[in-house]
């Protein structure tokens, strides 16, 4: 029998449950731009459509400083605290 040393970080990933999906979009919606080219074009259009179709909803725009790095913790916390939904524009 050969014994080898584990080359990984030895973590067992946590299984996470999806947040229950509400039947209607109400309350506060974050529009997050990851700062890739043309992401803002998509969000501009979405914002316009959502404002028309869901006048009771508060829309707030956010942007990551750069698409190439994870969003800073403070930004994630802010979006989490102040919103009920997030729409993220991923890429070009």
């Amino acid at each position: 029998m050969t014994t080898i040393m584990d080359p990984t970080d030895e973590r067992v990933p946590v299984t996470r449950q999806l947040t229950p999906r509400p039947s209607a979009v109400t309350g506060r919606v974050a529009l997050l731009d990851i700062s890739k080219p043309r992401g803002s074009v998509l969000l501009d259009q979405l914002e316009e459509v959502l404002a028309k179709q869901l006048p009771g909803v508060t829309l707030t725009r956010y942007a990551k400083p750069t698409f190439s790095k994870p969003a800073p913790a403070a930004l994630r916390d802010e979006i989490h605290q102040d919103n009920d939904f997030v729409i993220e524009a991923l890429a070009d």
Partner: protein
Amino acid sequence: MATLPAYRLENLNGEKIASPDAEQALICFIKEDCPTCKEVMPVLEAFFARFGSTIPVHIIGQTSQGNAALAQQFSPTFSILDDSALQVSFAADIETVPTLVLTDAGNEQSSRLVGFVKEEWQALATNLSVQLDVDAPQLDWPALPDWRPGCGSLSVDPANEPRLRAMAEGSPIRARRIDIGSQDDEVEFMFDQGFSDGLPLVPPTPERVLAMLSGTKRDAQEVLGEMAPNMGEVTIEKVAINAVMAGCKPEYLPVVLAAVEAVLTDDYNIHGVMATTMGASPVIVVNGPIRQRIGMNMGLGALGQGNRANATIGRAVRLVVRNVGGARPGETERSTLGNPMKFTMCFAEWEERNPWSPLHVERGFAKEDSVVTVFTMVSGPTLIVDQDSRSASQLAGTLGQGLQAVMGPKAYFATDCLLVVVPEHVDTLMRDSYSKEDLRRRIQEVSARPVRELVADENSATGIKAATAEKMDEASLDQMMTKFRRDEDIHIVVAGSEAGKFSGAFHGWVTGSVGSIPVSRKIEE
């Protein structure tokens, strides 16, 4: 004297016998192919007969087959305990067999006799008889030899000792141990576990990992940082395990460690480098005296295959990113095409053939420092062929024209590059006493274009957007724009063989704080 280790060993009947928990115990380590051990078998029998009913008397043999053979030959009334794993012998620091140990409460060794010296064994027997108030063992002492040397314990045999040292308590390695079944092929097993980059790996056995750790004076449990995307904790031990798998020698480990530390910085941004669809990869350049010491290639074929240090250092860094960081293609590694540099890309600069400051000196280190610099590149080496230019300005002009293609001919102010100038091109540049700064300036001069040429058009929608250009006046559109935002974005090193007029260029990824910034780290030896 030290405490004897606790144990649970099987006797010849298959019963597990625990180490003594008594006021006193007598323990003897033997092995079958040792003539002295055979000679003391009747003595041990007599000791067992006299003392065995009052105190534990354990005879520990070092091979299971040998134990059976001794039992058959001598028919002792004691059952020999099996330490064929040698872990008890190793932990008890047994160098010679027979070694006879008398322990007192708490398993402290009160007496330890090595080999057979009749006077010592007889004295021990007499004292113990008095202490235990039993008759002395029945032995024809005069018939026994006065002295017999012992034999080497199997636990210090070079074939076993490194494994035992790695497995022993107090070993510096702490990672989870994975037992691979005897019916399983260990290389196939590692493929199945997803440890591999697609090529076979060297099994990171405890003894190999321990040998790898001898390449550094640093504590195996020192934490270098957390590796994205899984934010796995990177210890020196984890790097050593992956370095074993990559095929590194222990003397390469300091280079791997420095490169991993560079990759772990926020400036380097390994998360983005791995996650990008562009197919970026670390490109590692080594400078300083360590290059020669570990036999790195900086000459013929420096950027290719065939040199163990170049190949395995780069591979080790990538395996750490994969296994500790968790960046695997199809998961968080999302490269559209992939890139052969993702297996490995590491080489040394030929400083002795470089008329200018070597890379690490340019980046603020002393010449005698050994330094690793990690860049992020998406392709390369792309050759720029110029066998005709005989002046520095012409050759530098060709290099500038070649570098115009980096990321696309209209991608200006977009990225950086790593230019590897070959010796023959160095000679042409030095004919006109070109400095590195002259070379950079000339590259920028030749590759500069008026803004209007960089506007999106019917041939290509890349470059400056038409809507942006429409807002510019004629003077702005006529303004010349350099290919690279700053001259320093053209990183220059020297490598390659003496023959050939083909310099190589690595093309950068997103550079600066929004992407990846090259990072240098001094190599701690």
